[in-house]
């Protein structure tokens, strides 16, 4: 690769980026939505900032820039100039990768500097951004026209971007999200306080592995693109093999991060308890009465005990690492602020001392949607929230769940 050719291509592509309305819109939406959310809610979801800046900028602009040259047939002119196909693609990748890093770092460090680890953000974002820009290269190569890209590309963009945001709503989306590099970047940025623990290294391992598989994958598509002459993309054996390897790598990165599930154990006779060793929690459980569902999303692990005959009503436990050393008092105040925003009525607050002298703050209130009761407390290592959500304000399940929770909260061990 010749540096004067690369720099010429990069300069031209940069001009295209800030003159083409389509790339400007993509950048504008990414920056705009995040800044807007920050102004509106005080803080945009930082998970969203990561996903949007990596996927919208990295993936969408990279694929756009490549397809644009084919759609406008300017690639034909470039390919009879001294520039090689590899140099053309490398120049584009370099530019979009740099733009992705700039946008991600500026948004994260200006809007979310309190929530993320600086070191791990600086280290993991380039890895994740490179993988996602390379995904963009392949899609850009496959799509011959902007019309085709706006179909295929939009679907893929959503597939890369939404699972991470929706993982909390659906277990399967959680599996999907963990396969993608964005998830590991977000985990690393949020697990920051752990230094270089085995868990952190595992996330880096998965990112490097995905990057390696992606590089092989992209090289096979570049080789095919160079040898292909007609406008329709034909997948050759090389493409299929490397795609399969990449897919397996992504499946692997999801599987190695299967959340540690809790277990329901028979403690004695016909009494059972739900135990989660990772979060050091044990709570009585009635298998005939409840159905258990576990989720992990972002940096939280959530267990729900749904009433079998009334699945909309449930007890839940949300557990989270206490990386930032949040105290019971801070935890309490933050919750209180949130409850006040929800227009709660009949708010009832009290404090008690649970097992091991842990301070338990109890919140009970109603909104238009239903009745809520929860206890929150923090230990040195974890933040816990245990509560009830019952949709039918008049129903009996709330009082049943309430009694159940009250009775057992004292027996709960940490």
């Amino acid at each position: 690769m010749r540096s004067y050719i690369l720099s010429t291509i990069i300069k031209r592509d940069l001009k295209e980026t800030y003159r083409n309305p389509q790339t400007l819109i993509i950048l504008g939406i990414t920056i705009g939505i995040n800044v807007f959310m920050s102004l509106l809610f005080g803080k945009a979801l930082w998970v969203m900032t990561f996903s949007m800046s990596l996927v919208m900028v990295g993936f969408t602009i990279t694929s756009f820039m490549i397809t644009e040259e084919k759609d406008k047939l300017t690639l034909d002119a470039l390919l009879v100039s001294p520039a090689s196909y590899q140099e053309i693609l490398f120049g584009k990748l370099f530019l979009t990768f740099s733009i992705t890093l700039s946008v991600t770092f500026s948004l994260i460090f200006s809007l979310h500097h309190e929530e993320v680890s600086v070191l791990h953000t600086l280290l993991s974002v380039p890895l994740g951004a490179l993988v996602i820009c390379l995904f963009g290269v392949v899609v850009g190569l496959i799509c011959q026209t902007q019309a085709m890209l706006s179909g295929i590309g939009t679907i893929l963009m959503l597939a890369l971007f939404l699972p991470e945001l929706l993982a909390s709503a659906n277990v399967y989306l959680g599996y999907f999200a963990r396969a993608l590099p964005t998830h590991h970047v977000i985990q690393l940025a949020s697990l920051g306080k752990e230094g270089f623990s085995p868990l952190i290294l595992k996330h880096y391992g998965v990112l490097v592995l995905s990057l390696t598989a992606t590089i092989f994958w992209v090289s096979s598509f570049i080789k095919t693109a160079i040898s292909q002459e007609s406008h329709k993309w034909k997948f050759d054996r090389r493409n299929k093999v490397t795609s399969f390897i990449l897919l397996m790598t992504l499946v692997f990165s999801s599987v190695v991060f299967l959340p540690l599930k809790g277990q329901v154990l028979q403690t004695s006779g016909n009494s059972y308890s739900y135990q989660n060793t990772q979060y050091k929690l044990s709570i009585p459980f009635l298998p005939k009465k409840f159905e258990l569902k576990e989720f992990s999303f972002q940096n939280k692990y959530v267990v729900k005990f749904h009433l079998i005959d009334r699945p909309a009503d449930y007890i839940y436990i949300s557990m989270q690492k206490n990386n930032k050393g949040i105290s019971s008092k801070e935890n309490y105040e933050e919750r209180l602020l949130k409850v006040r925003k929800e227009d709660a009525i009949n708010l009832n607050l009290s404090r008690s001392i649970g097992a091991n002298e842990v301070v338990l703050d109890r919140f009970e209130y109603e909104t238009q949607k239903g009745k809520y009761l929860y206890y929150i407390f923090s230990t040195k290592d974890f933040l816990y929230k245990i509560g009830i959500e019952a949709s039918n304000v008049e129903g009996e399940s709330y009082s049943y769940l309430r009694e159940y929770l009250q009775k057992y909260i004292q027996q709960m061990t940490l």
Partner: protein
Amino acid sequence: MSNCIEITNFTKKYDLFTAVDDITLSVTKGSIFGLLGPNGAGKTTTIKAMTGRLRLTAGEISILGLDVTKDIKKIHQQIGVVSESQNLYEHLSVFENIDFFRQLYNIEKNKTDQIIKTLSLEHKRDNRVSGLSKGLKQRVLLARSILHSPKLLFLDEPTSGLDPSSAKEVLEFIHKIKELGTSVFLTTHNMEEADLLCDKIAFINKGSIVAVGTPKTLKDQFGNSDVEVTYRENGHEKTEIHSLEEKSIFHKISEIHQAHQILSIHSREATMNDVFLNIVEHSKEQQ
């Protein structure tokens, strides 16, 4: 070597469809060569193969003594290409479009403005290409293609869609290029233009070369030179056309002259249009 292009038994198939079928051609250095033929005949395919944009199904192509399958990047340093589509960067100015390629060719900086002057584009130098007319865009494309003083220039339909005066400018430019010693390979649908411009012409139809020669020999071989006689018969005007090849032509004219009043006699020279039509019709008949 006196030939800048040597095509030997070149065949190009797209899957099962044969776009170009076993053609052999050579182009003399310093000449203007025209490849003519109906739509879909295989002209663009041939140019793409010569410029390294297609894999050859069979045969060999040598450009400036270099094999297209082996030394394509060396060839690219020495050729200029203007393709059918006006593929310029619409968001860049005229200057930026040309200067981008100047940097890729790694040649001195003042060359861009020099070429802009050569093609009389100074008044549009800093205008975005998206706002230019077709004729001006074509001039920018020509400027871009000769920036690095190529030895051989490929022009795929350089005047298509241009008004007569823009087309004339392009033709004059091609002439000038030739004077400077550059060989030109072009395709066109304008037969008159080919007749005026080309030193040698090949006709391609359905992927096969059906005739090659200088414009004159082609017209002699395939054209028809006629005499058109208009006379008055019972108060009505009538016209008869007689080929010059008819032996009894003068006898026929004198017969008309004796019986009627002749209004005019015109000779019609063979044109490249006739050649084109004859060749295409001829090959249809053969089918």
